[in-house]
C-alpha cells in the first residue's frame, strides 16, 4: 500500500504552464517513472522477484505534482507497463531468442510503486523495464533496472524464525510435563464444574430410560474442535456403555460420522459392552447447516433425550439447539472454542466449557496422568504469553510517557513487536527502514 494514497489534487497549474509540463504536453505522453529496482523476494521458494520504482511525475498520485496542477487526461498516467527479459536460465543452455524478448508481465495501476513478479523461474536471471502509459495509450520512455536479478531459493524462511522458536518452546513445555507425569510425579489441576455434570447427565438419562444426545458441531474433521469433541465423545460413550444408556450422535459431515463410529465402538469395547454398540445411532444427516439443525431439533422434540451434550465447533445453530433442549427439559452441557457462540451456550445451557476449558476437558476426562501433564505445559505457555504482554506494555508505556523516539526502550519494543511477534526475521537488520514508509 502506498503512503501517498488519497492525495487531493487541487486546481492550480494547467498543462502548458510549467516548463516541465509544457515539454511533456508537447510530446503527448507521460513522463517516465524512475529508479526501478529489482530484488530477489526474501524467504520464498525462488519463484519471485520484488520490483519497486518511483512513480512518474505525471502520475496524479506523485507527491511532486500533488496540489500543483489539475488532472489532465492527455498526459496523466493511467497505468504502468512492466516488461521482463530472461538474461540466463538455470542450466547451461543458451537463452532462446524467444525468451530474450521483452514481454509484458504486469500493468499496475497509477499510484502503485511496487509489484512482485511471481512468474519467475528458480535460479534464472532477469532484467526489467517499466514505462508509464496514459489514457490514449501513449507511453513514456522506459526506465530499466541497473543490475540483473536472480530468483533464488531460500532454505529457511527467516521471517518465521521466532515462530519456530515459540513452537519449539510450547512443544517443549508440554513434552516436559508429560514426561514428568510419566515418571510418576503427581500434577495438581483445578476442577472444572461442567465436567462433573457430564457424568450426572448420563446417569440421569439412564435412570429415565431416555437417550443421550451428543452433537459434535458442524465442522469437518479438519478442524481441531471436532477432534477435541471426539475425545470427549470417547469418554461419554464409555460412561454411557457402563451405565447402559443409549447415545445418539447425528453428524453434519460424513468423515466425522466415520471417525465418531470408530471412537464410540472403541469406547463400548473398553467398557466391556461391545454388543450394546449400535452403529446406526451415529449417523450422517446433511452438510447443510440449517437442514442439519432442522433434523436434530426434530429428533429432540420427538425422542426427548434426557441429556444434550454439545462439544465441537458451532455456529448460529447453537442457540436453536440449546433452546430446544431447554424446552424439552434436558440437562445440557456445552463446550466450544467458537467465541461467537459462547454467549448463547452460557445463557441456555446448565454448564458451558469456555474456549480453552473445552480443549482441557478431553485431558481431564481421560484420567490419564500424561494428558493431565500436558495441561501444566499449557499453563507454562500462558505464563510466557502473560510475561511478553506485560513487558511489551511496560515498554510501550515508558516510551509514550517519556516521548522517546529512539534508544534502548524503542529498540526493545520494536524487537518484541517486529521480530519476536512479527515477521521481520530473527534480529533487526542494521539500519532497517520502517516498513510501510515509501515516501
Amino acid at each position, binding site marked *: 500500500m502506498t503512503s501517498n494514497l488519497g492525495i487531493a489534487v487541487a486546481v492550480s497549474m494547467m498543462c502548458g504552464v510549467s516548463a516541465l509540463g509544457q515539454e511533456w504536453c508537447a510530446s503527448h505522453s507521460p513522463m517516465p517513472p524512475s529508479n526501478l529496482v529489482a530484488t530477489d523476494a526474501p524467504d520464498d521458494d525462488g519463484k519471485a522477484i520484488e520490483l519497486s520504482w518511483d512513480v512518474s511525475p505525471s502520475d496524479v498520485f506523485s507527491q511532486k505534482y500533488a496540489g500543483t496542477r489539475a488532472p489532465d487526461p492527455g498526459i496523466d498516467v493511467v497505468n504502468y507497463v512492466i516488461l521482463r527479459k530472461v538474461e540466463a536460465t538455470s542450466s547451461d543452455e543458451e537463452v532462446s531468442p524467444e525468451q530474450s524478448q521483452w514481454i509484458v508481465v504486469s500493468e499496475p495501476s497509477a499510484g502503485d510503486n511496487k509489484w512482485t513478479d511471481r512468474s519467475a523461474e528458480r535460479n534464472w536471471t532477469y532484467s526489467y523495464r517499466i514505462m508509464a502509459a496514459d489514457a490514449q495509450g501513449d507511453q513514456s520512455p522506459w526506465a530499466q533496472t541497473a543490475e540483473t536479478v536472480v530468483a533464488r531459493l531460500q532454505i529457511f524462511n527467516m521471517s518465521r524464525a521466532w515462530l519456530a522458536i515459540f513452537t519449539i518452546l510450547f512443544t517443549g513445555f508440554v513434552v516436559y510435563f508429560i514426561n514428568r507425569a510419566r515418571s510418576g510425579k503427581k500434577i495438581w489441576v483445578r476442577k472444572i464444574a461442567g465436567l462433573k455434570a457430564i457424568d450426572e447427565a448420563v446417569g440421569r438419562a439412564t435412570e429415565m430410560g431416555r437417550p443421550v444426545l451428543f452433537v459434535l458441531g458442524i465442522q469437518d474433521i479438519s478442524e481441531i474442535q471436532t477432534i477435541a469433541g471426539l475425545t470427549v465423545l470417547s469418554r461419554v460413550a464409555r460412561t454411557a456403555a457402563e451405565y447402559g444408556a443409549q447415545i445418539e450422535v447425528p453428524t453434519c459431515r460424513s468423515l466425522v460420522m466415520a471417525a465418531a463410529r470408530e471412537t464410540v465402538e472403541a469406547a463400548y469395547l473398553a467398557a466391556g459392552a461391545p454388543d450394546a454398540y449400535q452403529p446406526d445411532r451415529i449417523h450422517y444427516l446433511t452438510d447443510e447447516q440449517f437442514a442439519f439443525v*432442522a433434523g436434530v431439533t426434530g429428533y429432540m422434540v420427538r425422542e426427548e433425550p434426557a441429556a444434550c451434550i454439545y462439544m465441537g465447533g458451532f455456529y448460529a445453530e447453537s442457540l436453536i439447539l440449546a433452546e430446544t433442549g431447554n424446552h424439552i427439559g434436558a440437562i445440557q452441557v456445552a463446550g466450544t472454542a467458537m467465541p461467537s457462540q459462547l454467549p448463547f451456550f452460557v445463557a441456555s445451557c446448565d454448564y458451558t466449557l469456555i474456549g480453552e476449558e473445552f480443549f482441557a476437558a478431553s485431558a481431564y476426562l481421560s484420567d490419564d496422568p500424561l494428558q493431565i501433564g500436558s495441561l501444566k505445559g499449557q499453563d507454562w505457555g*500462558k505464563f510466557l504469553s502473560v510475561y511478553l*504482554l506485560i513487558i511489551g506494555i511496560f515498554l510501550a508505556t515508558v516510551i509514550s510517557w517519556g516521548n522517546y523516539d529512539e534508544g534502548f526502550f524503542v529498540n526493545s519494543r520494536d524487537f518484541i513487536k517486529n521480530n519476536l511477534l512479527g515477521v521481520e526475521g530473527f534480529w533487526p537488520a542494521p539500519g532497517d527502514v520502517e516498513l510501510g514508509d515509501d515516501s
Partner: protein
Amino acid sequence: MEKPQGSNTLIWSIVFIVGAIMLLISLSTSRTGQVWVTPTHHAFTVTSETNSNGGAVWKSIDPSTATNGDITWTTYAAVPEVELEDKITSNEASLSWPRTIGLWLAAMFTLFILSFLVGDNPAYKFAEAMVVGTSAGYVMVIGIWDVFVPDLLANLFPETIKGWVLPGLSPEPLEGLGYALHLVQYIIPAILIVMLLWNLMPSGGWISRWPIALFIGVTAGFRMIGAIEADLLAQIRAGIVPLWQTTDGVFDFWLSFKYFTITIATLSAMVYFFFSIEHKGFIGKTAKVGIWFMMITFGASFGYTVMGRIALLAARLEFLFGEWLHFIPAS
C-alpha cells in the same frame, strides 16, 4: 414457547384467519404469487474457423435467422415488479408456471418451518424430511460438479473432461517426471477415497482408519502452527499498547483509561484459564474479575447479535409480504 397450550391454539387460529383474509384480499386485487418472465433466445452457427484446440468455432447469430443445423435455446429472466405492467401490456412477458408454483411452495415451506413455534406438527415434520433429503442431495451435486470433476477428474483425465464438461480447460503440457508427479498428486486422493469407502465392504473396514488418521494428523500439525502464528503471537502483539495515551501531545485520561481497561481485562481473563494454580487469594480475586469481564463480553456479543437475527426474520417476512403477497414492493 412458554405459553400454555390453550392460548397457543387461540393465537395460532387468529394468525391463520388473519393470514387467510390477507391472502384473499391480495389475490383479488393484484398479481399475488405470480412470476412473469421474458424470454431471451440464443442461437449459434458453426463457422469454418477452428480454434486453438482444433474444434470448430461457433458464432452467435440473430435467433430469427437460425436454421436447422444451428444450436438454439431459450432462457427466461424474471420481470422486475416496476416493469411488470408495461411488459404484460406489450405482450413481452409471459406467466411462468414452474416459477409461480415454486414461489407458492417457497411460501408454504416458510410457513411450515414457522409452525414449529407452536410445537412439533405434521407440517414441520414434512418440511424437515424434505430439507434434509434435498440439501443432502444438493451438497453432493455441488461436490461432484465443483470439486470432484474439476479438481480430481480434470487432473487425472484432462482430455475426457475437456471434451465433456469443461471445454475451457487448458491443461499444462507436462511430460516425464513432472507428469508422473502430477499424476501421483491426484492418484493419492483417489486411493484415499477407495480406502475410506472400503468401510462399506464386509471385511477389512479398518483400512478406512488410515485416511482418517492421516487427516487428523494433518489437522493437528496444521492448526497448531496456525494457532501460534495468527492467534497467539498476533494477539499478544496487538495487546502491546502504551497505557499512557496522548492526544496532540497532551495526556488523554479517557483514552488511557480505555487501554488500561483492555489490559486489565485481558490479563485477568487469562488468569481465569490457569488450570494448575488454585483460584484463591490474589489469583482467585483476579480470576473473578476475569469472569466479570468475560460476562461483559458475552453480554455485548449477545446484544450485538440480536440485530442480525431480527434482520433474518425481517428478510423472510419481506419475502412473504413482498415477493409473494405484493403488499410491499419486492426487493
